[in-house]
């Protein structure tokens, strides 16, 4: 592992660090000021813990002697950690970055680790501390962020990942894949152990965390964080992203089938801090183009979709094709069935998984267009309600998923 070798090379640092209570990996392209702000926030973590910071960049001045009494002790370890959303950054490098943080945490005997990977509109002082403290003070195993939402950002998470994970694993977690996360020793050890057993093929450091925590009855809480700064979404070239994000979620789903098929309903997890609402005045999408993409896909991908979707769904899609663009609307129940059927086809390896997931893109754009039209003028709470309705549709549709999963007979309605 990279970090292992880093620690070996940097004997001086390692000796200085010895053991750490907490390891914090700062991933991504942070300006020095940003790293310093994160360090300032970490200083305020209660209990004066020893915190090792892994970051690929110049070390800010983290002199412990100048810190106020009772502050956390920080140790900076330069590490070539990957950038989660760097353009062209491969998935493997992102996975390796998280994995490195886990390995380093284990080596340093840390009680937990955090990954700071996002630029957040709000200053980090509070949320970074809140991400860390539950691991040390409250025996929490997974601390996930609850980002304030802009209506058209993070939609892949809002429309699929979050409600899907909630429906499957029964935990109302709004950003199950972080990327800013706090992870207990118990959980990262499980992740590392599982990775060993699965030969590294099945465990994904982001997609597997929440399911693993839920299926192991580990304690999960979420921290209300400000709005995350997302890279701009290229709606017309989203298929690779869709495939990249959904694949590990669906892989995990297969592994955890005995767990999620037993879970009914959902419960909220403990929330730390107050919900943060941000203005919804900004942002727009080209609904017309999204609908056109759906219509094009509907005409050209019928052959693939007919392998995946049952006739009733195909019939509904055909009806949508006949609608004039201004009346176009894909309802949540239909969308949820589509997601579930793609998850099933992924499990059954009906066609190449990559092709399968990419072929879902026009359907996703169809739903996103309906959603965009619906919430164009919505405020922050209306947005919460809208996504809550979607999440409930996922929960209502779960019996459909379970029945199709258990008896994947193509002779279905």
């Amino acid at each position: 592992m990279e970090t292992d070798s880093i620690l070996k090379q940097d004997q001086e640092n390692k000796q200085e660090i010895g053991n750490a209570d907490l390891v914090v990996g700062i991933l991504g392209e942070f300006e020095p000021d940003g790293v310093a702000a994160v360090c300032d926030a970490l200083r305020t973590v209660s209990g004066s813990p020893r915190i090792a910071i892994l970051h690929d960049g110049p070390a800010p001045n983290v002199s412990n002697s100048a810190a106020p009494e009772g502050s956390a002790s920080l140790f900076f370890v330069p590490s070539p950690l990957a950038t989660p959303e760097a353009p062209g950054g491969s998935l493997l490098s992102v996975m390796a970055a998280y994995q490195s943080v886990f390995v380093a945490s284990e080596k340093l005997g840390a009680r937990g680790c955090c990954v700071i990977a996002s630029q957040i509109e709000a200053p980090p002082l509070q949320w970074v501390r809140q991400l860390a403290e539950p691991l040390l003070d409250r025996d929490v195993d997974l601390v996930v962020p609850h980002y304030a939402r802009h209506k058209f950002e993070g939609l892949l998470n809002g429309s699929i990942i979050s409600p899907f994970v909630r429906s499957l694993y029964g935990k109302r977690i709004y950003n199950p894949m972080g990327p800013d996360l706090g992870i207990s020793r118990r959980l990262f050890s499980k992740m590392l152990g599982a990775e060993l057993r699965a030969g590294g093929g099945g465990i994904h450091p982001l997609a597997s965390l929440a399911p693993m925590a839920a299926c192991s009855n580990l304690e999960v809480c979420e921290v209300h964080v400000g709005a995350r700064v997302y890279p701009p979404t290229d709606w017309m070239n989203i298929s690779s992203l869709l495939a990249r994000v959904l694949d590990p979620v669906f892989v995990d789903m297969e592994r955890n089938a005995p767990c999620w098929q037993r879970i009914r309903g959902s419960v909220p997890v403990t929330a730390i801090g107050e919900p943060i609402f941000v203005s919804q005045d900004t942002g727009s999408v080209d609904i017309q183009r999204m609908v056109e993409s759906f219509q094009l896909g509907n005409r050209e991908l019928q052959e693939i979709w007919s392998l995946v979707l049952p006739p009733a769904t195909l019939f509904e899609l055909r009806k949508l094709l006949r609608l004039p663009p201004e009346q176009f609307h894909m309802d949540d129940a239909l969308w949820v069935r589509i997601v579930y059927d793609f998850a099933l086809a992924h499990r059954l390896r009906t066609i190449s998984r990559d092709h399968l997931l990419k072929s879902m893109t026009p359907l996703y754009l169809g739903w996103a267009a309906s959603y965009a039209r619906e919430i164009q003028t919505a405020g922050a709470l209306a947005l919460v309600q809208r996504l809550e309705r979607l999440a409930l549709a996922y929960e209502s549709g779960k019996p459909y998923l379970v029945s199709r999963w258990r008896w994947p007979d193509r002779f279905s309605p």
Partner: protein
Amino acid sequence: MTKRPGSAADPLWYKDAIIYELHVRAFKDSNADGIGDFQGLVQEMDYLQNLGVTCLWLLPFFPSPLRDDGYDISDYMNVHPSYGTLEDFRAFLAAAHEREMQVMIELVVNHTSDQHPWFQAARQAPPGSPERDFYVWSDTEEKYKGARIIFSDTERSNWTWDPVAKQYYWHRFFSHQPDLNYDNPRVVEEILRVMRHWLDMGVDALRMDAIPYLVERDGTSCENLPETHVVIKTLRREIDAGFSNRMILAEANQWPSDVRPYFGEGDECHMAFHFPLMPRIFMALRQEDRLPITDIIAQTPAIPETCQWGLFLRNHDELTLEMVTNDERDYMYLAYSADPRMRINLGIRRRLAPLVDNNRRRIELLNSLLLSFPGTPILYYGDEIGMGDNIYLGDRHGVRTPMQWNADRNAGFSTATPARLYSPVIMDPVWGYEAVNVEAQQGDPSSLLNWMRNMIALRKLFAVFGRGSIEFLDPSNRKVLAYIRKYGEEQVLCVANLSRFAQPVDLDLSKLEGTTPVEMLGYVEFPRIGQQPYRLTMAPYSFLWLELQPRIEPVPTSAELAGQAPLNATRGWESVFEGVSRERLETLNLPAFLPKQRWFAGKTRQITGTRVVDWAILTVSGSALAFVEVQFDSGAPEIYFLPLAMTLGETSEELRRTSPNAVIAPVVSEKIPGLLHDGVFDDKTCLELLSIIGSGIDIQVQHGRLRGVPSEVFSKAAGADHKALQVHRGSAEQSNTSILYGDRLILKLFRRQEPGVNPDAEAGRYLTEHTSFTQIPPFAGSIELQPVADGEPGTVAMLQGLVLNEGDGWKWTVEELNRYLEACAPLPVPENLGAELGDPLELSERPASHLARDHVGIYLDSAATLGRRTAELHLALASPTKDPAFAPEPLTPKDLEILVEDLRQHASQVFDVLKDRVSWLPDEVVEIAAAVLSRRRRVLDYFRTTLNPHDLRTLRIRIHGDYHLGQVLKVKTDFVILDFEGEPARSLAYRRSKQSALKDVAGMLRSFSYAAYASLINYTTRHPEDIARLEPWAQLWEHSASAQFLRTYNETAQGAGLMPSDRADTRRLLDLFLVDKALYELLYELNARPAWVRIPLMGILSLPL
């Protein structure tokens, strides 16, 4: 010492495993030599993974002369060259582990081949030497006489003479398989070395063959001896010391109680086959009786927590009948082996599908039992596709033929010339590889292979099958087998019909009351279990797996939880009506609050959003007055008037407890928590509303002004100090809200706001200030909303003097009627009653009869008073005035035409609804409804023809509009008339329009009819035998009261133009309104109270159309 881990993470992996037994030789040939091999097996690993099996059990693959299918091993440490090399085995092992499959191999510990170097050395070595002692020798055949001969078909003794050693050697099986001598410690050491060899390589499990026969002692059966257990414990100890997550499976074909010791105290074998269960499953199926199964399970002792039974339907050996009684064996031979060639030793050498005549449902049923019984299921290769056998091959070779992969040459097993195959493939038309093969079944979604794959996947989802307890149910129908598997919170009910015909079954599941069975294959919810027997109907050979799910408590949604979060009120109302707090109020709190209010008119529609369109702060109470627009999923939005108040601190908890529906949202103001709630529940707010009227205060709102307008009688009605009056809230809230001030005033808040003056306030003010009519509550003032733009003012609230009364007219009338019916019940129906049941208008032209006076009595006086007061009201409303809203106008032919068309449309709509609902009506009214429906044409024609548009010479005036007994108050011997709002469902413009006074008259006549029949229904509910006798009495009451009402109405209103001058026109116009009112009632009852629908139906039938 570090233990070498196995490939499984869970030490108890074998409890959840699905084991697949295969012979390398029979599975796949990779090098075209006609014999299956490891490389061929590796090629088909994806197939096995796809099938879902988790552990592969390989039959012996070691070097061997192959005189007993490999169970005669000549080298324990190597691979038979026909199957490949040790490297090939390692590659196979890695491929299995990569797919998260475990591997079990054979450890044939009881005997070796006579070709094994150990035996060759032993026969050459002198007696007593360590080499000779590897086996059991004797100079005679007389030792161990108590041991039975197992292979009775081929062996005559357990001893065979060796001419080289010049001694007999001991063998429990074939004579070429000499038994090892476990009294010799070197043998144990050698076997341990063999074990370590394979376990070091990564093998996960060892099947110990013929384990009961390891040690021999004279005077015993030489089976299951204590010394054998000592050996097994030694082997286990060595495994546990050096390895983790490994498993030993004991092959001990014994009764369960004899097998039990092979588990030890969890320190011998991890698993053991349950041999006696297998034949009994087949017996139960053939006998269509669950008893053989439940009997053998009952005889099965408990085993240590870490141990497990191995279950199978078929395997590489014969269907062994050693563990059955002689009678049972005879039955099984007759049932399952018609051809003697099917039998071998003490068993039947057949595969699963041929045993059950290739019946798919039987195959599925047996597999469902295998997969749901307590233990680890073991599948035999080929049975997942329903492969057949070849009884013409010797020994048990008939069930060991090549795997049938496809319809190509040699079944796709090998590309060798057919003659080179180790065994011929099956080729007959039913079982042959062209009909039964993997490829065909993979392409057939309904194939047995796909069914097996789904079932295996399903079983793997539930740990209860591998780890749970079993409890059999005892339904009276023995053809049905039912049992409950339980593991922790998981509970599964399994039901199987062993019969070839459909079977009913009642299960006693009362101890599971409240749980919901969910069929596991399709996730279909069944009815919840109660105290009653749970009845199921089972199709032939069907089975059900039902997951028993406990009831779950609903958890609030995120939106609901967000709604429970407090609104920020730090800066008072400004904080509430701004930003996120306002959005939360509009998005979450108000949509949740409004449907809970009785005054909210939009209950049948889905709220899609709300918006506070205007608001103002009340300076004294600190409350607010808000106007909220409600949007719906269909139809126009509505605006509601909502006084708001905030209560902070402990008082708010009292409010939450006593009036939870009044709470809109929690608030927090400067860290003090409290509640935002309906202002009506705050006395200070209520008193300030009164002050606004009394003082004529103007309040600026965003879109206009709220203005208090006292009437001339406010001071008199309110008394000297209206601010000191005690506030109460009305209890019988309907579409409005009432606030009572002491015993002097009542303030009516008009919740739903429409543009225009409210007709109740308008009429109240007019009658109070401009007429001498006194039989209404005195109008004391109102709060009006004057829009900024040119719009009509609206009425927000109306204040009236409170009238002391004895209840409303309806309540009083019904009480009178109860007494009347009670008195009439014992009386015979008078002979001359028919004359009393004529048209009330005609009856009104003559004095009330003696019969009516004698029986209806005092109520006639009340009806007379009511008729007079109604006429006086109409006279007041018809008096000349310059106010255009009240000035009377003639009813023109055009007005009449519009009226008739309106009534026809209404009638047509009601008939349509009645037609739709008639089949839902109670039986006793269906005929009446049909009679009414048959009058549809007549009624519609009646509307068109009865009143040709001509000059009726009558007036159109403002009327009450929704007149009935519930709208009058009984005040001593008189009545006060209330509520001039009109029919709530109608538009404000309609309610303020001028109409014929006869509409009110018809309303009251229908109300008499309603009171009579409602009382009759109520009375005869308790005394159903009286209904036929009492109905004429009820009709007498109705007709008498109606006639008396009309009598005084006519007398009082005579000559004022309230009725057409022509008597016939009066009658026709009145009938028109009566039909319309009855149809209005019919529609209401169809929607709300089908049990009462008889009343308006009878009303329609009674009209002379």
